[in-house]
């Protein structure tokens, strides 16, 4: 069993599904069912992969390496550590949920439009698996850029009225980041041992490049990841893209794709350029804290609910980056757990907001009010998702946010305290939003046909709420998957956890 090229199969499955959809005749009536089926099989397969994975081992497992373009040192190499696997699992869980949520997005009209829509989603799934599983830096770069294609079309062809501008901004931003990274990727190859597998991650780890070169290479990667994450001040593409995208696309974009940014910081910036990472830490921490507070304040002021959710994500990504660069076991484990939790929380927020928008036909928060009386179940689950977003204990996000704060405090108390003010601001942006949507007198101008949550929509929300509760009360299995990989990362960087004051020398510093 363990000789099977698990990850390649996992990657190929949705890609083949997308291909099959494209090959189907025009007006194929069952494209949604086919896509959902493929994504569910992918999910099951991913669970098998997770079983093969040895929890407690922090190194890259399930490795496959094939020579691809040896002239350029490029290999087709896949493998996962706990962090990558958790991201892949998040992706394959969210894709079927998004497909169900997107069921009525594009009507079957006898053209290829619906086929194209779900095919792009499947192709995106394949790319997401690839980008997290790649262990060859060039291959990673290829996936990193190729991912843009399905997203570009999902926004540009299926999005809202301003879709063209949003898709272009998204593409330009990402390409710019990608180009800078490409330079760094090639530069890194030159600094490395070279040869036919010179882009393999293992051949480039521990190079001790040092000096200005390492700092420049670090920046090349970091800028690309900061754009992707997105961090202040390179965040402005996200609210636009998330607003114009369909809710399901927004989920995959913000919930999964953006994680490539923070994943990349952990996997590439920290491990490949430990010295430069420590050099850059103060600046990154400042930007992370700004992202937390800035994102939260802007979320409070939003009038469009998709934009609001996008800004909450900028705030949450601030927490994730803060924890990554605080470089303690607790903070980084918290950050990686946050990457999983944020995926579920954002998915629920976008998709439930999408249900409201589908009923009212407006993203404008002011157009709502009193909806607790119109659609009690939608309002109720929106509140639950919002509470997850404001990190209420007992729900998923709390554990990770708390770990980031206290883990960061161990080394950078000031950054932790400033970042923690996000806790107060989160209560404001979530509760004010909920107040405007759900409370107040029942709206009068609504048609009486407005229905509460349908059965299909219940299938969308139920697994997400279940994930909130499981990850809130029993995050242990996920933490056990993540922590060894975090420990390995920290070993590569060469930092050790600060000891607590009393256990070290009986006085505090």
């Amino acid at each position, binding site marked *: 069993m363990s000789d099977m090229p698990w990850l390649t199969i996992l990657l190929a499955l949705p890609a083949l599904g997308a291909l099959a959809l494209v090959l189907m005749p025009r007006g194929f009536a069952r494209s949604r069912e086919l896509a959902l089926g493929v994504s569910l099989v992918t999910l099951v397969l991913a669970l098998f992969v997770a079983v093969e994975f040895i929890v407690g081992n922090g190194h890259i497992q399930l490795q496959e390496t094939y020579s691809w373009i040896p002239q350029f040192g490029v290999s087709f190499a896949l493998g996962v550590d706990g962090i990558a696997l958790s991201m892949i699992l998040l992706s394959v869980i969210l894709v079927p949920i998004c497909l169900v949520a997107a069921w009525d997005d594009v009507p079957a009209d006898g053209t290829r439009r619906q086929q194209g829509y779900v095919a792009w989603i499947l192709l995106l799934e394949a790319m997401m698996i690839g980008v997290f599983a790649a262990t060859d830096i060039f291959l990673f770069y290829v996936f990193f850029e190729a991912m843009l294609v399905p997203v570009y079309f999902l926004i540009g062809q299926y999005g809202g009225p301003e879709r063209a501008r949003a898709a272009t901004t998204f593409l330009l931003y990402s390409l710019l980041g990608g180009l800078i990274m490409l330079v760094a990727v090639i530069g890194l190859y030159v600094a490395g041992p070279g040869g036919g597998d010179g882009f393999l991650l293992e051949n480039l780890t521990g190079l001790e490049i040092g000096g200005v070169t390492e700092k420049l290479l670090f920046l090349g990667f970091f800028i690309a990841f900061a754009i992707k994450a997105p961090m202040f001040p390179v965040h402005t593409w996200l609210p636009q893209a998330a607003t114009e995208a369909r809710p399901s696309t927004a989920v995959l974009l913000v919930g999964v794709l953006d994680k490539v940014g923070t994943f990349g910081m952990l996997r590439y910036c920290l491990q490949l350029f430990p010295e430069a990472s420590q050099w850059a830490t103060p600046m990154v921490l400042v930007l992370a804290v700004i992202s937390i507070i800035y994102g939260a304040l802007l979320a409070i002021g939003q009038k469009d609910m998709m934009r609001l959710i996008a800004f909450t994500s900028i705030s949450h990504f601030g927490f994730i980056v803060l924890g990554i660069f605080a470089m303690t076991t607790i903070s980084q484990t918290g950050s990686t757990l946050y990457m999983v939790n944020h995926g579920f929380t954002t998915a629920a927020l976008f998709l439930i907001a999408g249900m409201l928008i589908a009923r009212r036909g407006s993203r404008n928060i002011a157009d709502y009010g009193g909806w607790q009386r119109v659609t009690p179940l939608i309002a109720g689950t929106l509140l639950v998702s919002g509470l997850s977003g404001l990190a209420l204990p007992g729900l998923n996000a709390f554990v990770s946010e708390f770990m980031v704060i206290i883990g960061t405090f161990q080394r950078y108390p000031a950054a932790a305290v400033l970042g923690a003010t996000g806790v107060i601001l989160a209560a404001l942006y979530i*509760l004010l939003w909920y*107040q405007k949507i759900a409370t107040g007198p029942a709206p009068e101008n609504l048609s009486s046909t407005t229905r509460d949550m349908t059965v299909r929509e219940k299938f969308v929300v139920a697994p997400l709420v279940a994930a909130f509760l499981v990850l809130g009360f029993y995050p242990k299995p996920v933490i056990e998957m993540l922590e060894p990989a975090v420990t390995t990362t920290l070993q590569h960087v060469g930092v050790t956890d600060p000891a607590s004051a009393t256990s070290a020398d009986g006085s505090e510093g």
Partner: protein
Amino acid sequence: MSVLETSVGVALADPSAVTAVEATGTSALAWLVIALPLLGAALLLVGGRVTDTFGPLLATALSWGSFVLGALIVVQLYGRAAEDRSMSVQLWDWVSAGELSVHAGLLVDPLSMAFVLLITFVGSLIHVYSLGYMANDPDKRRFFAYLNLFVAAMLILVLADSYLVLFVGWEGVGLASYLLIGFWNHNPAYASAANKAFVVNRIGDFALIIAMAYMLATFGALDFATVHGSAGSATQTTLTIIGLLLLAGACGKSAQFPLQSWLGDAMAGPTPVSALIHAATMVTAGVYLVARSQAIYDLTPDARLAVAVVGAITLLYGAIVGCAKDDIKKALAASTMSQIGYMMLAVGLGPIGYIYAIFHLITHGFFKAGMFLGAGSVMHAMNDRVDMRRFGALSREVKITWITFGAGWLAIIGFPFTAGWFSKDHIIESAFSAPGWQGWVFGLVALLGAGITAFYMSRLFFMTFHGKARWEDDIHPHESPLTMTIPMMVLAVGSLVLGAVLYPTGLLSGWLEPVFGHAEGHESLLPLIAIQVSVFVLMVLGVGLAWLRYGRDEVPQVAPEASFATRAARQDLFQDEFNEQFLRRPGAALVVGLETADKDVVDNAMVGGTSRGLASLANVVRQAQNGFVRSYALTMLAGIVAILGAVWVIQ
């Protein structure tokens, strides 16, 4: 007056040295105390309309089940030696990474069980009361679900064995409070009140999170046993900072100065909620937190002094506001603030005060819950009116309510031998025995507070039940059904006799001694008898003044123009104006400014410049796409040469 003599006992060497053993017998089922109401909440919320018929009854039964189980655990603990009454129940490994290791675990000890009994007993009574009070509400099932959720969260709070698990309950009760304040959120003002409560509480919660971060960095743990056990090895500065942070958390939850502004608005919730959450239990969680963290506060006199100062300020603040409120529920809310101020003052006094703080907390839980339920019954009689200026002369119309409310009134003003007399007088006496100037300041404040309390509570009592009827025309007062009056009677009996049952018998001090140890205070600044006589005289003066103005004299039906002082008190000493002016408005301006800046500066100038630059670059590139095959071929050739060159260089 021997019943008030401070009892003499043998001090346990160090109460924090009591280590919890693994729970056996009934105590091992402590998780079920929480699980029962939690199950109720889940069933009623997920079950939907199917549970409409039996849901409320089920929720009430589960709450009583919790009480019975809690009582059985207390019986079991009582059968053990005093120093063996601390037991731990380990549930599961919750969050572990690096140095952090937190198990979901419970601590069953005399302090937590005292709270369990109070919460489940008063909570269950209020469930019963709500069966009557909410009988005609279309969302009754949801109401009972939230009540059960609250009870479960509150039990998590007091049974937790670590600060992190406590925090789960801490925010859980905040959520339940939010949901219940906004229960009738079709009224926008009520929805805002709910938000205000949650957000102000979050400020305190923020401090609590930082306190935990500080603890982890200092002690490497968050469980009570480790933190309290190694508190002695931390520096004074660290302990003071942690103490102040915990105090800030307590201020949020317990509506203490300067985070008190939410409590008055919280009266938007249905009255049973005000009784349970915003009087008897949740708002006392701050007192519990400080008492539970005694090992830290014992070592940091500075933080303790801050606790006492906050308590003293709030007890006067609440009392002053209480004098001017015409809304019966808001007057009671101000009084709650003030009474919790007494408790805070007591825990701030350190070891001499802990037991009396908890004692007052328990008696207050009875008499204040009783009076809130009474207020609900009055509102029931008066078509949900709350303006006391339109009450009056209700003593004949709602006799049971009048008598039971009267019992609570006697207790809160400290009428001799009622429950409140025992507990409050002890706090005043302890305040006078604080060292140095503190004894005078805290003692006199507590004494003055007692007089004001007697005045405003009597004002409330006389305006509601005595004097002339000032009812609006459509009002026909009627007594409430038995489901409502029986809980009121039970609480009234408690208000009268609980002090005499718990204190002179040594029941309470004996029970709590393993937790708090036994402390002898400094010599009191005044002789005991002098304090007691002063308290009594002030009480009589307060009642007398209130009788002259609100019992005997005509009460205007509309609040008359008044002095600046009265207007200030009516407006809660301008707390909302202050917050509006210095917090909300600047905050709103900042948000609006940032939104503009994000579009104009960040998007257009800083990074937007790049994307525009790219767009113009794209224009240049587009011109290269001229459609001539030969120019494409040339480009391809150049590319191939470049790649080959690169390969050659690398190899």
